[in-house]
């Protein structure tokens, strides 16, 4: 893996478009995210924030345009290189998608097992990630036994366990009360200050004011302000 310098874009989207069967998802979006940046993707529900994340992770391939991540290009990416692409991203899904009947440690260790080239065993890295989000004391609890705020922290720990270049967090505070969301935002700030680019999709931009983010606004799949 090639670690880019702070000024060079780590993620680049060039005129990316994606259509769902019945509606337009993303319409000609061009943007870049630099290493260590805190970016806020703002837009109403259905504006294309989640679609953009899914395109960045190549869960969806753009109908046109190009996505670049570090030295990789989506148009030239071979199927077997897809895991390498995805290992550079950490994703906090909007629905969290934790495996409810498994322990917190298991949830994170599964993600850690996907990246074998980092130092430390998957378990040790999982414990470290849990420590960063303040959940190390609950590692044997089942994910379904946690509160929404705690689940959000675990989802963040899972996303950072493989030390990604970019963390994508889809509506990380939308279901949380003020105090809990403040805790989660603090965790995201710490991750960002350690050098990981953080991209947050939200329809509540005011909550992230203290992160001093660069704002990108989406409306109906189009980039209206960056």
């Amino acid at each position, binding site marked *: 893996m090639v670690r880019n310098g702070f000024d060079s874009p780590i993620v680049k989207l060039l005129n990316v478009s994606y259509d769902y069967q019945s509606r337009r998802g993303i319409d000609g979006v061009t943007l870049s995210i630099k290493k260590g940046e805190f970016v806020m993707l703002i837009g109403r529900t259905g504006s294309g924030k989640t679609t953009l994340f899914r395109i960045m*992770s190549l*869960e969806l391939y753009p109908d046109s345009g190009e996505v670049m991540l570090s030295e990789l290009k989506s148009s030239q990416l071979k*199927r*077997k290189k*897809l*895991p*390498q*692409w*995805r*290992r*550079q*991203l950490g*994703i906090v*899904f909007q629905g969290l*998608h*934790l*495996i409810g009947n498994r322990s917190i440690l298991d*949830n994170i260790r*599964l*993600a850690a*097992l*996907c*990246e074998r080239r980092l130092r430390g065993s998957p378990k040790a890295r999982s414990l470290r990630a849990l420590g960063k989000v303040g959940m190390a004391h609950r590692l044997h609890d089942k994910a379904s036994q946690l509160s929404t705020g705690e689940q959000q922290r675990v989802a963040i720990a*899972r996303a950072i366990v*493989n030390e990604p270049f970019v963390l994508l967090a889809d509506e990380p505070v939308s279901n949380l009360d003020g105090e809990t969301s403040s805790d989660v935002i603090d965790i995201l700030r710490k991750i960002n200050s350690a050098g990981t680019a953080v991209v947050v999709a939200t329809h509540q931009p005011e909550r992230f004011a203290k992160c001093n983010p660069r704002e990108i606004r989406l409306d109906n799949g189009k980039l209206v302000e960056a």
Partner: protein
Amino acid sequence: MIYFSLVEGWRNFKNLGIIGLLTICSLTITLVLVGVSLHGYVIVDSWRKGLLGKFEIEAFLVPGVDSTIVAGLEVKINAVKIVNSVSFVTPEQAAKRFSDQFDIDLMDMMGYNPLPSSFIIKLNRSANPASSWQTVSDRVATFKGIDEVVYEGKVLAKIENFYQKSGSVAIISVGVMVIISLIFTILTSIGSIKANEDFIRLIALSGGSRTMAMGPFIVMGGYYGALAGGIAVGIVYFVKLLLLLGWAGQPVVPIVWIPILCGLGILIGVIGAGWSASRKITIY
């Protein structure tokens, strides 16, 4: 990766529902059918070979044929492929055989021995009677000094017909059961994949390979097959024990069939689950 697949596959296997039980049942029935068919094949084949061993081709010589020609004929017949043995029967020996078989003395009855010299030809047991007996018979009939060639063609044809029909029925039954159990395995695997969408998504988006995402489901199919194979081996050997009680002289079934049955079960499980995983895990 293998350890991961084994552990995660076991976790999926433990969560088997009704359709999982149906899969194991159908796989078990399939494997029992295969085991019993194989067992039946050994028994029927043993009977067939025993019966065929009693059959022979009889080649009658032209009356008064020269002894040098007879000696040459014996060599030529022996040289025919799949001929196991040739023995020369003099008219006197033929008359004695007739007398032993039918309790009639031809010399007493007719005043002379009308039976000609002949060769009794036996074929290899592995020879396929449907074609080879006719071929050998036709070939021998062309040799100079041979008057007529006879063998029990109709009886042989009946034995072969029965043998081949039994084989066809067994193969068709096994084939149908394999397809049914494959369908159940595929349905179970699809159910398991749907129930574990979060797991697959997590592996895929955390940078795990496609093999890593598919492995646990393929291994789960293998576990189904192994369990069904184990049960089937037990049932088949129980059936064999019952047969032994009724018939001490039944042919020995090789022990190698235990891994064959288990292996077949695992193969069906792995193929069914692998097919489902390759079709339903679409995040790559």
